[in-house]
């Protein structure tokens, strides 16, 4: 029952995917076949995939047809006396030559698509994508705007070992991020893809873009999205423990809305930081105080320009320990726990324990510098706001038995200078 049901669904799904091939909205995503995608290239790739698949099926029917006919017709009970032919140069030449022509028929359209995919010229916008363990940093080149995007908090909570949370209850489980990459519709966007620690691969299914992010290399890829929408992807190259937990979300906005969004994001940051160089507003999730929207809402708000949330600027007054600990706990969960774990114990030897560690219980200045600049495998977190860093560090310094001074946002701001 179970099996035949699945098989029927598989058959129906393949047929539907092959025939319709129009919709690319998330809801219509096929369980059985490649996505049609949202770009001209992705549709070409989808067509090419189906084309090759159908040719393979035709060959399979011919070869397996002959094989099974022979198995049935030439079994000993039906065909007791075996023939004694064992070669035929003509036949062998024919079935060496025919595959050549089939392959040429496949290679020509494939080469055409490949050449178009590799043509990154004349891009209107360039985004630098940097993979790290385990998230992505996006930089709008020439616009002085960058931010970090990691697994969304609710997915992150549910995916812990024995979390007790049913993944089915989490919307877009493992496919939601703190900050989606926002791109304009109808513009050729070039990606410059690299990594800062190990090799990752930036893959968005619907854009048919997959490129390795390699430390020391800058790879190029491009896309031109047809229509507004949300497109999801994942890291496709094994990059360590949380390889499966660094998704990608791309939100495509109409060109004008995109421009407003970008200007607003940059404006907010510039305003909040005075004359300091514009530092990325990394995580709306993290910057929220108790009055700000919940994480998922914040993500939505970040892209919905009309309802742009006033992002809290770093407050001038000193915060109480309770306030710092409360906001810091959230920040720690989204930004730090992937490596250092919610228990603070880390995963030695690569990800050291924070419990009783020299840095987390020592002088605040060193702790702040370590966080802003990164060290070894740890990426720099300068893109977080002063408040977030202050909260996260205060939380680290006063949890799991650690007892040390809290860190105020002003201290972080001072350390940045």
């Amino acid at each position, binding site marked *: 029952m179970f099996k035949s049901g699945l098989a029927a669904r598989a058959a129906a799904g393949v047929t539907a995917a092959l025939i319709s091939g129009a919709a690319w909205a998330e809801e219509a995503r096929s369980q059985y076949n490649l996505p049609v995608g949202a770009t001209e290239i992705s549709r070409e790739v989808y067509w090419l995939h189906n084309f090759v698949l159908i040719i*393979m099926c035709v060959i399979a029917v011919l070869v397996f047809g002959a094989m099974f006919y022979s198995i049935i017709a030439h079994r000993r009970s039906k065909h007791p006396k*075996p023939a004694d032919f064992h070669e035929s140069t003509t036949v062998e030449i024919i079935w*060496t030559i025919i595959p050549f022509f089939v392959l040429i028929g496949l290679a020509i359209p494939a080469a055409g698509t490949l050449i178009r995919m590799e043509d990154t010229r004349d891009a209107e916008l360039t985004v630098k994508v940097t993979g790290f363990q385990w998230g992505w940093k996006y930089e709008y080149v020439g616009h002085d705007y960058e931010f970090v995007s990691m697994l969304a908090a609710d997915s992150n909570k549910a995916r812990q070992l024995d979390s007790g949370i049913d993944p089915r209850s989490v919307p877009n*489980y493992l496919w939601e991020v703190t900050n989606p990459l926002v791109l304009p519709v109808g513009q050729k966007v070039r990606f410059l893809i690299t990594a800062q620690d190990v090799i990752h691969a930036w893959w968005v299914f619907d854009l048919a873009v997959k490129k390795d992010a390699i430390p*020391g290399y800058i*790879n190029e890829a491009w896309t031109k999205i047809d229509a507004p929408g949300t497109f999801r992807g994942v890291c496709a190259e*094994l990059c360590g423990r949380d390889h499966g937990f660094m998704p990608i979300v791309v939100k495509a906005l109409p060109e004008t809305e995109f421009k407003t969004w970008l200007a607003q994001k940059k404006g907010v940051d510039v305003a909040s930081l005075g004359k300091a160089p514009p530092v990325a507003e990394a995580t709306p999730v993290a910057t929220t105080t108790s009055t700000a929207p919940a994480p998922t809402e914040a993500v939505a708000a970040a892209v919905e320009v009309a309802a742009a949330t006033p992002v809290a600027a770093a407050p001038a007054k000193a915060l109480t320990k309770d306030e710092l600990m409360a906001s810091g706990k959230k920040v720690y969960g989204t930004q730090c726990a992937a490596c250092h774990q919610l228990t603070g114990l880390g995963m030695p030897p690569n990800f050291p324990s924070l419990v009783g560690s020299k840095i987390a219980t020592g002088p605040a200045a060193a702790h702040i510098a370590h966080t802003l600049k990164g060290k070894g495998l740890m990426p720099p977190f300068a893109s977080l706001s002063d408040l977030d860093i202050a909260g996260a560090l205060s939380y680290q310094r006063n949890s799991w038995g650690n007892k040390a001074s809290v860190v105020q946002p002003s201290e972080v701001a001072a350390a940045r200078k």
Partner: protein
Amino acid sequence: MATAHAHDEHDHSHDHHHGPDKGIMRWIKTTNHKDLGTLYLCFSFTMFFIGGLMSLVIRAELFQPGLQFVDPEFFNSMTTLHALVMIFGGVMPGFVGLANWMVPMMIGAGDLALPRVNNWGFWILPFAFALLLSTLFMEGGAPAGGWTMYPPLVLQTGNAFPLLIFAIHLMGISSITGAINVVVTILNMRTPGMTLLKMPLFVWTWLITAYLLIATMPVLAGAVTMLLTDKYFDTSFFTASGGGDPVMFQHIFWFFGHPEVYILILPAFGIVSTIIPTFARKQLFGYDSMVYATASIGFLSFIVWAHHMFTVGMPLAGELFFMFSTMLIAVPTGVKVFNWVATMWKGSMTFETPMLFALAFVFLFTVGGFSGLMLAITPVDFQYHDTYFVVAHFHYVLVPGAVFSILAAVYYWVPKWTGVMYSEFWGKVHFWLSAIFINVTFFPQHFLGLAGMQRRVPDYNVMFSDFNMLSTVGAFVFMAAQFIFIGNMLYCMFGKRGQVPNRVWEGAQGLEWTVPSPAPYHTFEDPPFLTDSETTVHWDEADETLTGVRR
């Protein structure tokens, strides 16, 4: 010295054809190709069992979305070790074991050319895998960077790292000794009259495999040595910050890795080309073109490596070259499949267990070949790369491919080895359970990959739940079915001997069927003489002996 010499003479005076030592020392000291073949095969099945358990850990974790059993880091260790154990511990020693047993008997040689090297080559392996598996109990865990060991990730491995490298060095030495032994034996010890183009196809495919091994294992050794020095001696072969190049490792690795793929499948071609003619009662179709196709595949395997790394950002010209050269492999592989079908055509087939496994091989390996050709198409490969589509592809060519061929070979020759016929009924039960559930395990993974599930992850979006659940069920039943095989083999090893004729299968051809079953400890001390001018050793129906008599 003197006593040893005296002992020697003493032995000789009594019994020139002395048998094996008694007890455990027989297996430790043996230089006999049959004993070593048995050791290799037992080792191989032990490793299949261990690697299989690891795959069950993987499948259990993937049974449902969410993390239920293991930490992601341990999950990565499981995928890494599963691959290393199955490739270097299961499939390769399995084929070497078959070569040990069969190559000398097929070419009419008394033993392999270098018997002591043979002993050494085998006894390295238990140490290599003891090193590798001991890392499971080390601080920092077992290697978890994938069997491909890409830097910089693999350099994050903890204390397990040097053990991983040395284990691979040892496996490489073992493979190279085995390969040299096979080449030297085949080229020097064929019985008079057996020209190269009269050799059984299993011998041919192993000859080409051995050359691939000799050419590529040192490349792997070089690559992992560079990893070792990068980690401990401050070199920067693959470290970008020191002026090195992480992509260079991938090129070197796959220059080994792609021929390695054919090392895992060419002997299988030879086995299937032996078994199908036997049970079709008809000579292999197109023997010469089979040999040439194998050689072409061997050659092409050296110029396609970068199709494993289309997404690293190669120049367009490179991507086109590797796409075209990869597609070319379909031609000789197609020739092989067509020849097998033509061998069956108008034959007189019966379907004993070895034949069933061989037919399943042709069918399912070809399915893996189709997905392989799809993966060769670079622009679409960008979508397939590092997804479950790839996992499905290589498991189709490795499990119903390489592993089924080993099972087919064992069923085919085990009556010759032990003198006991396996249980045909349980063999067939084993076959049908294996053939059905290997498809239940791996076919859904094609859909998972196409729909977007990436490889090497312990958790996934809930839309992938159904197929993952199905795949896990398939894996557990497949594994359970293998116990039938173990039972059948124990029966063959310890059952009552001497019930089977020299030529176990009525359609079988080849020198191995001229010796008694079980094959005596020493065979062909005097080379058999071939008079036959046909392309292969040919069974003479009239007098039930080979065309060719002992000189």
